[in-house]
């Protein structure tokens, strides 16, 4: 490598480092805003803004899902295993909505401390398995029970 090439190489390295530092600082400053959702603890501790639309993300508490008899209204509880909030939603839930699984709900807290959602998104994990394997795991008690939402 001659001297000129070496200089050019250092210029490229310096460019990359400079941009990394700038982007790193920007992301660090924006850390909270990049999160897609607030956890139930953050909402319960009023770390989330009260009167704006926010997203709440967490696990649906087992056996907490209640459907109203005459409308599409559903009630369920959302937890991060520290705090739990009540969620109310009118509409059709996504296919992967399950008790014991993660969801993200978009909506507002009302005055009674209930989170009124107008959109519910299902989160799924990175694990995939065939139904037979899931059944076998469930039988041996290695898979947490996952009662499917009544369709």
């Amino acid at each position: 490598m001659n001297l000129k090439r070496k200089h050019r190489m250092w210029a490229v390295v310096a460019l990359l480092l400079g941009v990394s530092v700038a982007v790193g600082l920007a992301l660090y400053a924006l850390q909270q805003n990049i999160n897609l959702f607030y956890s139930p603890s953050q909402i319960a501790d009023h770390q989330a803004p009260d009167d704006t639309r926010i997203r709440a993300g967490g696990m649906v508490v087992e056996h907490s899902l209640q459907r109203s008899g005459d409308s599409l209204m559903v009630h369920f509880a959302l937890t991060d295993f520290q705090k739990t909030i009540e969620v109310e939603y009118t509409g059709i839930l996504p296919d992967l909505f399950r008790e014991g699984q993660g969801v993200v709900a978009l909506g507002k807290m009302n005055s009674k401390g209930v989170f009124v959602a107008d959109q519910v998104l299902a989160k799924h994990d990175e694990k995939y398995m065939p139904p037979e394997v899931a059944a076998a795991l469930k039988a041996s008690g290695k898979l947490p029970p996952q009662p499917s939402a009544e369709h």
Partner: protein
Amino acid sequence: MVKVVANAKALKKQKMPQWFYQLGSPRWFYELSGKWLPWLGGSAALLLTIGLVWALLFAPADYQQGNSFRIIYLHVPSAFLAQSVYLLMAIAGAIGLIWKMKVAEVVAKCAAPIGASYAFLALVTGAIWGKPTWGAWWVWDARLTSMLILLFLYLGVIALNSAIGDRQMAAKASAILAIVGVINLPIIKYSVDWWNTLHQPASFTLTEKPAMPAEMWVPLLLMVLGFYALFTWTLLTRCRTEILERERRAGWVCDLLSNSQIK
């Protein structure tokens, strides 16, 4: 005097290996890549056929998502490629900047549209997958947004390349943009770990135990390898055309063309 000799010695030691300079010769690159092409094309066709048939017909359905999870066999390889191609483009751009190597400039230029197609494919398959599983086509979470930025970076590189008439200037400008954009790659990769996202963490990594059984994982591996082979084939084909066009006045290209016309 002594110092100059010492400097020359130090410089000699840092010389890059022979093949590095040979690859920089358009003619050498053209002849070598011509020998690789049939092997690459053949293995791409073989891997993709076996992978697709296995993935779509024989791999088991997922216990939660049913058959809709099968889109993973297109989504994951195209997302992989979109990022790898970007890295390749940036490295080629840097080599072009530092060593002023023509072939590196050609590779960087030809990789951009291919990488953009993979990024687009990853975004579209992700949206199609997201609707039934998450309940939304698009969510502004960190993973999806950083992937969209990757597509825009590709489009920027393509635009710079075609907007600047002078080849050397175009290569320089697009290489700088490509290098600056490299910072996006770790952000894409770690976005699912650093922030709360709707997108799940990686299922398929080369370093960790896969999060799925072998009968699901092996076809995915075949698809990823097939996508890499297909990409290399596409890239070399594009580069060869570009080299012929740039070197059309060189003696070896004239010889090549007149020979092929006689045949």
